[in-house]
């Protein structure tokens, strides 16, 4: 719990606005993958760190790049591009790891870069049931409208599961 408070402080200090009176459930951290913008609920985010030395581990899917040792915590890293079936891209100085707590387990999401923390009230989130291509729960929980931009909001518990969720690419095009 205290971790989360300090991380929020970090986010605020990093110039990301976070008003104490805001409802945390409506706050999203947005990040970029290629030219698409995605968002995850801020409540699950514990911290954002730069790319670290990744140590490879066996018996994991290809999109789990390995683990990092973050101050004594072992955190598996998921390359979200690979998770979505997007082309792999070499990590650069903008590449960051969003460390999250999903179902009481840590996971680091490797993304092209974080953008900002946004408040997106439910009225500005379009929820459709047809996003998922199968009967399983879709990884996309909704499309958030922020002015003339959109952010694809992700359901992190589906994201970290082993479900096949390669995103249909026409989706993001349609959303633009």
């Amino acid at each position, binding site marked *: 719990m205290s971790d989360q408070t300090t991380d929020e402080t970090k986010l605020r200090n990093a110039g990301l606005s976070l008003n104490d009176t805001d409802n945390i459930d409506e706050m999203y951290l947005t990040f970029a993958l290629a030219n698409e913008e995605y968002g995850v609920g801020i409540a699950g985010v514990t911290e954002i760190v730069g790319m670290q030395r990744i*140590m*490879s*581990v*066996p*018996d*994991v899917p290809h999109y*789990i790049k390995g*683990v*990092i*040792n973050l*101050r*004594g*915590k*072992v955190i*598996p890293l*998921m390359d979200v591009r690979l998770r979505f079936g997007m082309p792999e891209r070499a990590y650069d100085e903008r590449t960051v790891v969003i460390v999250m707590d*999903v*179902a*009481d*387990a*840590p*996971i680091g999401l490797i993304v092209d870069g974080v953008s900002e923390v946004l408040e997106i009230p439910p009225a500005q989130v379009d929820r459709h049931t047809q996003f998922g291509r199968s009967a399983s729960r879709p990884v996309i929980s909704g499309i958030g409208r922020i002015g003339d931009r959109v952010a694809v909001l992700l359901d992190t518990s589906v994201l*970290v599961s*082993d479900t096949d969720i390669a995103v249909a690419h026409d989706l993001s095009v349609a959303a633009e």
Partner: protein
Amino acid sequence: MSAAVETQSADTGLMRVSSDKISRLMDLVGELSLSVSETVQSPDLNGLVLSNFDTAVHRLNMIVREVQDAATDLRLVPIDDVFRRLRRMVRELERQTGKSIDMVIEGGDTAIDKLVADKLYDPLLHVVRNSADHGLEPSDERVASGKPAQGRITLSAAQVGSEVQIIVADDGRGLSRDRILRKAREKGFFGPDEEPEPSALWKCIFEPGFSTAETVSNLSGRGVGMDVLNSTMTALRGRIAVDSTAGAGTRVALHIPVSLAFLDCIILRLGQQLFAVPIDVVSEIARPAPGELLGISAEGGSEMFRLRGKHIPICRLDHFYGAPTRGDADSPSSVLVVFNTSSGAIAVPVDEILDRQQVVMKPLVGRLSRVRASWGCALLGTGEVALVLDCERLGAGVTA
């Protein structure tokens, strides 16, 4: 009883501390020792002559090791706490069965990790109950066979190296070889004409579904079967050995590591990946000569390593984990590490043997919990992460 304990605690200045606080301290100590070694091994220091620094580092390392020991110590409790609860249970059993039981406790001051102690009560209760209920004969039967009328159950604990050995022994009638063998043959563990070694036969009673209720001694089940004992022991990284002599009694020995937090390991490298193996399962490290490796194409292909006339199955970790060969293609794994497992020895080829060190164990959570044949992650002094191999499951996977 409890009043007595409290007065005693006041006198000796004992303090109740929540286990969460101790876990937090353990975590911090782990992080401390990691960041010390990270600092000390910093590449920035390469090539510098730092005589005073080295002295300071030496002292720092000594202190860190002591802090680590002291922190580990905090979680250690005497096993007597568990034994005392069992003693009460035996009195209850005496009443229920009408047998007179002499309960002997030895080595009650043996220290054990609190987390382990908490998990030990149920499996030990099961073993003790088994002995009291069905191992020990009724008094008249005992007298008739020339034994003292009072049956005896000995509970003993002792530290052997980094393991605690707990033995439950009784002087009862012993396990029935005939009945267990019959059941084992029914279950297909042994052929109809096979006469297994006693130690191999006794192991059967821990197999899931090997209902002791119909064979040895119809246990008064509390939902805890011998196979549950077995799975608890696996979770605690322990081993069980049973020994029994007809007419003279049964002896169940549990071997459990003292602490779950730190583990004495050998660090291995295969390609880009690091693995840690508990030191006590490594029986040998060998550099095979060309003629000692034997490929067998039958049954999907396997390899054997000939060591002093014996053939040991080879388990390639990259095959086991279904990954494309990640080892260096130019220098095929040149070192074989032989592990002792309960399903026989296995030889695992690696690229390099790096070190032997006390590692800090972290459980596998989230996505990583699905990694097979592993007990957890080991944080190394260098800050790197190695996967701790569970050689039992690795061995079972190879021979199955």
